[in-house]
């Protein structure tokens, strides 16, 4: 559409021309604005909100042997809360939730323990090194997630050089009657945590680095000048100021790790599945859509708390940056 049409003279006797010019005038007055809002809005309502509401509604439906396998009304209850009751009675779900939250929490803590010194180290190396190292942190992030998990499958396998190296050093360290033939790493919660730390570590390092880099090095110097030893400076000055980064990084690891599917399927313990796997299995294998939806809703409810904390800190961090110059 030619925007110049708005300025041009109306074409008499040509309704098409007049319609075009009306359209152009509308577009310039408010149409462009309405279109910018309405297009993504409509898209998200159709492909995010409605599917999400389907999940919520499905969690209250009853499973039937039809296709698709659910029903409302008729001989079924209109709202069926049996799924939610099962969440609290069936140990499968309770164990799955506990396993997921435990694995995600432990992985988050290890990410923090490894990521914090790395992020701090990145702020202390020379500028040219820093850019290269930062790129090396981000690089795995651009490569396939699946392949990063896969790389560890290769390392953890029974016959891999890594496993043999661990086995040999164990056998060398302990008496011979404790000797093992290999370290049973695959298909365990340990494997899930290790791979989660591996794949999500960049999400921890980057926000930590961002918050640490902003710190004024003169604050450190001021604290040292006032008689603090480096460790005290870290506790008194650096750590409190990087709290927003810790929260952000922690949530960026914890939230997706708790709902992870790929990692538990590939390296997890099949006899104590995590939530993501439960949802997927209930849905695809057991074809119990209502139960899969119930578990999904429960997982989302559990995620609300951490998300709120995250967004509160996020707003605070942004507010501290630029929120003061409002008239």
């Amino acid at each position, binding site marked *: 559409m030619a925007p110049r049409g708005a300025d041009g003279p109306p074409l008499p006797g040509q309704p098409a021309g007049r319609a075009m010019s009306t359209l152009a005038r509308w577009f310039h007055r408010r149409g462009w604005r309405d279109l910018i809002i309405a297009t993504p809005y409509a898209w998200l309502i159709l*492909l995010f909100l409605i599917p999400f509401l389907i999940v919520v509604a499905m969690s209250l439906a009853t499973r039937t042997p039809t296709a698709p396998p659910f029903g409302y009304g008729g001989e079924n209850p209109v709202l069926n809360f049996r799924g939610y009751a099962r969440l609290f009675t069936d140990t499968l779900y309770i164990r799955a939730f506990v396993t997921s939250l435990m694995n995600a929490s432990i992985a988050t803590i290890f990410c923090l323990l490894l990521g914090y010194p790395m992020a701090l180290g990145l702020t202390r190396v020379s500028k040219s090194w820093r850019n290269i190292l930062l790129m090396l942190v981000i690089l795995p992030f651009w490569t396939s997630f699946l392949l990063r998990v896969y790389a560890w499958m290769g390392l953890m396998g029974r016959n891999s050089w890594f496993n043999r190296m661990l086995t040999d050093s164990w056998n060398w360290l302990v008496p011979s009657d404790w000797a093992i033939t290999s370290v049973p790493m695959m298909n365990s919660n340990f494997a899930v945590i290790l791979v989660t730390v591996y794949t999500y570590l960049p999400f921890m390092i980057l926000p930590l680095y961002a918050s640490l880099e902003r710190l004024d090095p003169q604050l450190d110097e001021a604290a040292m000048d006032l008689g603090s030893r480096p460790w005290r400076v870290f506790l008194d000055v650096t750590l409190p100021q990087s709290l927003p980064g810790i929260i952000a990084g922690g949530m960026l690891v914890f939230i997706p790790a708790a709902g992870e599917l790929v990692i538990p399927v*590939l390296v997890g313990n099949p006899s104590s599945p995590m939530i993501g796997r439960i949802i997927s299995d209930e849905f695809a294998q057991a074809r119990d859509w209502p139960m899969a939806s119930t578990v999904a809703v429960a997982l989302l409810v559990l995620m609300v708390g951490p998300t709120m904390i995250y967004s509160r800190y996020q707003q605070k961090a942004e507010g501290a940056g630029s929120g003061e110059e409002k008239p």
Partner: protein
Amino acid sequence: MTRRPVFLITVLCFGFAFFYIPILSMMVYSFNDSRLATVWGGFSTRWYASLFSNRQVGAALLLSVQIALISATMATILGAMAGIALARFRKFRGRTIFSGMVTAPLIMPEVITGISLLMFFIMLAQITGWPGQRGFTTITLAHITFSMVFVTTVVHARMSQMDRSIEEAAMDLGSRPWQVLKDVTLPVISPALVSGWLLAFTISLDDVVITSFTTGPGATTLPLLIWSKVKLGVTPDINALATLIVVTVGLCVALAGWLMSRAERRRLAEERLAYRAGG
């Protein structure tokens, strides 16, 4: 700095070893002659040869790239619109719901997004008869939806950093808001649009969970192909494929990083020069 932070440097070295040893190991074993993927049996490039002769891989790669190109472009358009709307239009009806809808997909576990879209497509097909078969279109729609919110985040962040008086200046000089957007805002945020597109592209290219729920018969993307093979264990041809992907991505990122830092250096030099010229 008077003291070298020995501890920090050590952890840094350990961390990077942790990052790269699995990948390097995988790359080395892609040249393994043995059929057993984890036992070394001499150097060979046979897995690369078999990879190149595998038509399935080529088809899957093509499909993935097609989907990624379309969905990244659409996601950039939609995501930029949403970012602009949130950053510039302070008040409009349903703003709260809107801003909720652009953040929620970011934290929604992929499994849930996957089953929600699958149920949506199945029910839609029941009601309207479309989509009769899931595949290319449904995957693309799903990818657009969950990658557009990343673009929105990038664009919104850039827009809130931007000096608003630049837009006001354009308005002051006689441009209507729409022209301001076209002449000033979009060119100024164009780096954010580029990085948003790249982000959406890689997210789409990488996705396996949501794709596995929204795909249908015949539509196998590269991650889906890898997924189906990897579930059965470690195989040497996947090692080779992974090596190719990692090297390609690594080269692209390194090139982009080098170009960016060169541009930045030149810019800084010019600024210094301008400053010294004074006046």
